């Protein structure tokens, strides 16, 4: 039963990623695209954890942690660029 649940969850998360990609492509303004990228980071954490569950390997959490860190840093760097026109002042 668990293997079916994992596959269904993967499908739903993949649909979520596809919707985010659609917003990334059509997003009318730059901030909209940044939101789409931020949400894609979070959804890919979910997808990687699901991959770890599917393969029964506990070491996938490290890549999830890295994605969480990089996602936050890159989102704040993008926002800083929009706010100031410069990343490091």
């Amino acid at each position: 039963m668990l293997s079916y649940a994992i596959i269904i969850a993967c499908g739903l998360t993949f649909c979520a990623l596809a919707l985010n990609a659609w917003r990334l492509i059509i997003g009318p303004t730059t901030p909209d695209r940044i939101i789409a990228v931020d949400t894609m980071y979070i959804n890919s954490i979910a997808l990687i954890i699901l991959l770890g569950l599917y393969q029964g390997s506990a070491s996938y959490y490290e890549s999830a942690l890295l994605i969480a860190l990089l996602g936050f840093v890159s989102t704040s760097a993008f926002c800083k660029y929009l706010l100031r026109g410069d990343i490091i002042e």
Partner: protein
Amino acid sequence: MSIFLEIVVSVLLILGSIVTLIGSIGLAKFPDYFTRLHAPTKASTVGVGCILIASMIFFSVELGHVNLKEALISIFLLITAPVAAHMLAKAGLHYKVNMEDNTQNQHLAKKAYLHQSPDDE
């Protein structure tokens, strides 16, 4: 793994992915920037949180000892998601994105951009 724990893990996985999907539907269909901003905070708190708790339970049973590593990721997401949302909102104000016409109190957005109090001139 007992059948009871298997059901709990499966329900948490399905619930988490449904919440994630609803957050992304919100991101795709909401009409303006500030309403779209509500989607990622939603997806990251409950959606990914449920999936991480499911993974935590699964590997704690599978490996035979307490496994709290996924809890670190959810705590990290809980701390960073509001900060990211705040910065995104500031960027949107600065960029002067279009707002839906039926947004109430639109004058407050201008005050917020100028860092003023609402009763300032």
